């Protein structure tokens, strides 16, 4: 089964819009709850970054901030721009370059999801320490999936085709 070019563009647009709508809740809702000896700490994506920064680890905090906060939005915004100009003859070379960059860096935003998996694996020490995933992680994962799938569905050749 192969999608027509029109379907590819429409599906990509729908996914990008969905991703952009869910981006805000994904950053407000907690993605996990960490509890250590009775102290319960719900963590949002940004909360995790601030925690790392406050602990004197600005470099690691910067990496997580870039991967989990900046990259998903930058990727969705770039895709939205490419899709908005679809069929237009303007800035084709620039769009092609931006799309290439989106492909290269996009997957790094999955850091937070993998982080959750590693923390959930070791954080099962009963009352001493536990890590629980929260519904925010589903929303965050959907945002990432929307951007990843949209970038896969929209083919670079479509940038060069007229409407």
């Amino acid at each position, binding site marked *: 089964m192969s999608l027509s070019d029109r379907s590819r563009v429409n599906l990509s647009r729908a996914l990008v819009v969905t991703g952009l709508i869910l981006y805000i809740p994904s950053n407000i809702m907690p993605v996990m709850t*960490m509890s250590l000896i009775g102290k319960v700490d719900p963590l949002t994506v940004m909360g995790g970054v601030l925690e*790392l920064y406050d602990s004197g680890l600005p470099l690691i905090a910067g990496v997580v901030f870039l991967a989990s906060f900046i990259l998903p939005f930058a990727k969705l915004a770039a895709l939205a721009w490419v899709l908005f100009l679809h069929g237009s003859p303007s800035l084709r070379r620039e769009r092609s370059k931006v799309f290439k960059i989106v492909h290269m860096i996009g997957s790094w935003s999955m850091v937070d999801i993998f982080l959750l998996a*590693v923390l959930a694996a070791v954080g099962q020490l009963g009352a001493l320490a536990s890590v*629980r995933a929260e519904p925010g992680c589903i929303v965050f994962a959907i945002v990432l999936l929307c951007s990843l799938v949209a970038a896969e569905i929209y083919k670079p050749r479509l940038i060069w085709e007229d409407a």
Partner: protein
Amino acid sequence: MNEALASQSLEAEGRWVACPYCEAPCLEKELLPGQELICSRCDTTVMIHIAKRSLQPPFALSLTGLVLLLLANTTPILTFDVVGRSQSDYMITGIIELCRQGYFLIGLLVFFCGIIAPAVFLSCAFYLGFAIVLNLRPPGLKLVSTIAHAVRPWNLIPVYSVATVVAVVKLKMLGSVAWQPGARYVLGVAVMSILCEQISNRQIALEHLNKMGVMKKE
């Protein structure tokens, strides 16, 4: 005038190949060592000079990556200790725990991007390398090439290794953490995957498969 005629005759004789990125038609030409054919539309490398042994490194890297992936999945990555109680982390335990907590989508995503996609990508690279380097024609080469290309963006084992480092930093704030041998294997698979992706060239593989009569030139 002569130059224009020469150019026309070259175009008449030459074959057109599609750019692997934007699919623009590019005129194929004989390349000398170090030369590349660049797409005039999107600046992507369309063809490179094929060195005689250029397919051996990806073949070796994919084989190494597969062995390391097996080890990474069977040995613990790290151990977390709080007040004398400790817990080890295997790649699969995080996925099982997420599913146990009812987050099947997240578990499935981690399972696919962290274990299945790297395994499929490395297996496909190994199968293709095996066939091409040994000049064999095992079944399904065309399908394997397509699968390798499709699964490549979902191979996120390098991202997993970075997430492990971040997790260790975070866990150190809560208790004591000890690296286990699995961490080295995860890092090894990540390095092998990146190198395999960078070194292996689809055009070279397709060129060889075409010579073997497996598929028509794309």
